[in-house]
């Protein structure tokens, strides 16, 4: 089932390359059909997922490089099942959105599908090498998508994005090998299986450098302050369907990496450096929010608000307790939906008005009442109004930070920073929403129309999820919670520290 989820978009991508691009209807059917099918499968996995069970489920396993015992092993737990669902949903939505645009490029669609497959693979891989491969697979389509179809200084943006990310991921490759060697030294079994490796106790000094290597890869991908400088350029240049996948799903791979690797593999290092990273994350969330206040370009406003929200997510992860981690995973899902919806709205406004400058738009409410309502709901979710999904996540994260034992003295400061961030979020989101929609404007073009049915259908799922998670977070938190508990309490059964290893032999 999981292998199918990855295979379908890849096969569809190949098929799209092969068929003549004049056949618009067929292109449409393949692209939409495959991404829709993936979403249905992902939803099926979500429904079939046993949330009480913290183990990996739907595991698909076969040998890949048998000499090195590298396996093609996929599986989902409570964290990844939500991410898979999110990715499939966003990919489906952005492809749908792209197909409703004017020019449809077959190559674009094919690359989008490859990107989708890459992200899905990252979330499902249970083998470090396989994880690394998918990690790089994500990068290639993203490079071309931004480089060919982007706007502004797109080559600079995409080059910066790819090189910056690559630096991190190469460090990660080193650490991946390091972890396996550490395991090999203790047991003389060569394996890249994540589930086996997490039980290995790595000596503290080794933990630190390996942790930093993994951390760099994920920190750049998320990105957290101060490794975020590719983001404004890449987000600014990326076309909206790509951007939705980038911010909604790809940025989550970084946060997911923290949860999948950094915490279970290197608990001591995470404990030791948690408060530093939380400090970076907390700085980043204020930093992003503060810059967002100064933005006049709505696309970069939303981009910087993403920096802020992603900081929030990472902060929760490094609280290193149940609430913080649950909140972070839930917030990953929430932010994926909210940010994606906001970027769609940015693009709709840009297409209708021909400008993204906030000072150019005013008083759209009169002409676009439906968008007004939807936009208001999403704004409220983005600024963390209680009762909507954003708040549940933020509340859990801050509660986790407040009670976190690993950052005892600094916890209060981080929570206060979180409070300031929420206040800033209210300011910039209201600047955006009120500035665009309210007040009086006589100069609006007369042929301005409200959003059409297709656009409503696209934004509607976001609205439903925003309200649903806000009111009934339990099914989601119940899915996440056993897994996070498991991750925080993994037992180290394989000892590799030098003193112990002698006794083993």
């Amino acid at each position, binding site marked *: 089932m999981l292998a199918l989820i990855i295979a379908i978009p890849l096969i569809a991508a190949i098929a799209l390359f092969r068929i003549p691009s004049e056949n618009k209807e067929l292109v449409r059917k393949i692209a939409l059909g495959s991404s829709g099918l993936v979403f249905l499968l992902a939803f099926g996995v979500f429904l079939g997922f046993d949330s009480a069970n913290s183990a990996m489920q739907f595991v698909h396993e076969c040998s890949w490089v048998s000499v090195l015992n590298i396996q093609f092993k996929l599986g989902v737990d409570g964290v990844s099942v939500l991410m898979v669902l999110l990715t499939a949903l966003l990919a489906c939505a952005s492809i749908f959105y792209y197909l409703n645009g004017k020019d449809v490029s077959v190559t674009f669609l094919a690359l989008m599908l490859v990107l989708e497959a890459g992200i899905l693979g990252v979330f499902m891989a249970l083998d470090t090498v396989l994880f690394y491969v998918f990690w790089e697979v994500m990068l290639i389509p993203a490079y071309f998508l931004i480089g060919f179809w982007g706007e502004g200084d797109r080559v600079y943006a995409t080059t910066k994005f790819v090189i*910056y990310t690559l630096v991190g991921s190469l460090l990660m490759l080193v650490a991946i090998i390091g972890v396996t060697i550490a395991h090999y030294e203790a047991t003389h079994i060569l394996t890249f299986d994540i589930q086996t490796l997490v039980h290995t106790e790595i000596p503290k000094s080794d933990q630190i450098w390996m942790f930093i290597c993994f951390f760099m890869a994920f920190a750049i991908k998320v990105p957290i302050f101060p490794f*975020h400088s590719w983001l404004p350029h890449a987000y600014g240049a990326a076309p909206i369907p790509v951007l939705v996948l980038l911010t909604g799903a790809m940025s989550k791979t970084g946060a997911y990496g923290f949860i999948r690797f950094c915490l279970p593999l290197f608990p001591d290092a995470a404990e030791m450096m948690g408060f530093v990273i939380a400090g970076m994350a907390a700085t980043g969330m204020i*930093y992003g929010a*503060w*810059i967002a*206040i100064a933005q006049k370009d709505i696309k970069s406003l939303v981009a910087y608000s993403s920096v802020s929200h992603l900081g929030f997510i990472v902060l929760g992860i490094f609280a290193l307790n149940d609430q913080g981690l649950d909140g972070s995973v839930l917030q990953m899902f929430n932010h994926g939906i909210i940010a994606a919806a906001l970027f769609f709205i940015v693009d709709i406004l840009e297409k209708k008005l021909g400008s993204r400058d906030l000072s150019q738009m005013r008083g759209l409410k009169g002409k676009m009442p439906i968008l007004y309502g939807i936009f208001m709901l999403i704004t409220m979710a983005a600024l963390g109004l*209680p009762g909507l999904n954003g708040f549940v996540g933020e509340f859990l994260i801050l*509660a986790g930070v*407040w009670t976190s034992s690993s950052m005892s003295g600094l916890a209060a400061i981080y929570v206060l920073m979180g409070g300031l961030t929420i206040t800033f979020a209210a300011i910039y989101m209201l600047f955006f929403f009120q500035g665009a929609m*309210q007040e009086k404007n006589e100069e609006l073009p007369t042929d301005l129309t409200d959003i059409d049915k297709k656009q409503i259908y696209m934004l509607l799922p976001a609205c439903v999820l925003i309200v649903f998670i806000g009111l009934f977070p339990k099914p989601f938190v119940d899915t996440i919670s056993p897994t996070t508990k498991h991750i925080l309490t993994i037992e180290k059964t394989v000892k590799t520290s030098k003193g112990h290893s002698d006794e083993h032999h």
Partner: protein
Amino acid sequence: MFYTWLILILPLLGFAGLSWFGDRIPKKLVGPVGCATVGGSFFFTLIALIHLLSMEPGERVGNVQTLYHWIQSGNFTLDLAILIDPLSVFMLLVITGVGFLIHVYSIGYMEKDPNIDTFFAYLNLFIFSMSVLVLAADFFFLIVGWAFVGLASYLLIGFWTEKTSAVFAARKAFVMNVIGDVGMVIAAFMIFENFGSITYMDVFAQAPEKFLANDDTMLLITLFLLVGAFAKSAQIPLHTWLPDAMEGPTPVSALIHAATMVTAGVYLVARCHVLYDLAPYTMMLVAAVGVITALFAGSMGMVQYDIKRVIAYSTMSQLGYMFLAVGIGVYSVGMFHLMTHAFFKALLFLGAGSVIHSMNDEQDIRKMGGLKESMPITYYTFLIGTLALCGFPLTAGYFSKEAIIMSSWYAEGSNPVFWALAIAGAGMTGFYAFRVFFYSFFGTCRTAEAHPHESPTIMTYPLLILAFFAIFAGFGAPLAHSFLAPVFGGVVPEHHTNGFLEIIAVGVALSGIIVAAIFYAEGGEAEGKSDGLKELLAPIHDVLFRKYYIDELYDVLIVQPVKKTGEFIWKTGEQKGIDFVVDEVGAQVKEMSRLLSIWQSGKVRIYALNMIAGTVFVLIFVVFL
């Protein structure tokens, strides 16, 4: 008591229904639908009241109705539950009762507005949120309700979205309230950390055992809760949004910014009285801020010309009195003033609305005058409201305010300074309340083209009903105190009688009225005659009129620096700092490879020489070493 859920569900249904189908049903039907849901809520509140009264006093507290298990994360669990006790029912009576009257009034007031369906949807949303706030059985849903009333207030202040000033006022109110929400959230974390639970029942049961009075933790928790309370109830220093909030339609001002939402802060202190009793220092602060706000707002109200702003300042001032009451520990006295205030302040706002309506949306009292003849019902009801506001003997305001002033002399946590300030505030109240009254109803009309007329009956009936309560509600004081007593540990506040003090209090209030009469009995400034008060107060008039320059001060100290810093971080920190460093790393790598590439001379013979030299070197290495 499961039917109490209907109190919440009805307005929610109203909101959902009106926002989805509002534009598809006849405009005439929108108002009645909106009223019916709130009326239904009021009905069920009455049933709950009777139900509670039928119980033994001891059983009336702690009735928690759980709907479902809401969330479970680690050791943090929470049910979706509501709490029915005398305090919440008392608040609900005000919310749904006064709310219902204001809904009815709105049918007339908003009749011609094209977006009347949205308006009623928002009003229903507000009633729903406010009910969540008071019915919450734990701090989490308190915060949810807290933020939702903020949202409803935001939506209704900015209801006329085409009006720039309304949009800005709405934004200001929202941001100020978010600051309050953050304070509450932090308080909730501290409570969770210390008590392992955030339901009222667990926390209030544990608190007295776990903490001594004035424990640091207790002080911090109560202070963070206060941030929320002060932001919502427009107390210094978080008060600046309330006068601006008058940009919204007048029924909104009556409902949200006078009768119900702004009193949430008082409710919060009363609800958490167990915690506040353990933090006498915080109580002191509550009382001090309350009484200072009472005075401060009163002084600003004396010189304003916008009829709604004057009433808004009086609201702030009366809220100050309520905070004084709860701050000195006489909770049910404060709650009772909350109720009478809801009656007479809603009455005043609706009266003002009636005036504004008939003057074609004119709010400046300098342009009114002489409305006595043309609007008799409004005139008399407004008079009653004004008298009640001033605490004129035997009106509702007299009983409730008098009790606060007397308690401020006698209560343990108080001191004579509070009493003196409270008295001074009462004098101001008399003055500004009657100033507005004389300005609007006496003399002759100062706008030639206006044709003031009495409002339709749908607007005057609510006025009459509220006027009735504004006069007679005061006699219910003993009933209210004994009804609320179980919540506040069975304490019924003593009724202090001291003829001398009472005479002082009433005397000061009356002298305020008399001063107003001296200056304005002829209907305020007539043509060519300047404002007598303005000359008298010349040195400080501007300071008062510009609201002590606090808006300007906040702009200079907070708003502009935040914007400038944002700009600075973006332009300098981000683009010239972090981004520059990253680009520079790339540039340096390039530079280094340029240096290395000098080795690549492009000359074949040099390559060959290198190759051979290398081979020789390796050979030497292998053979001889």
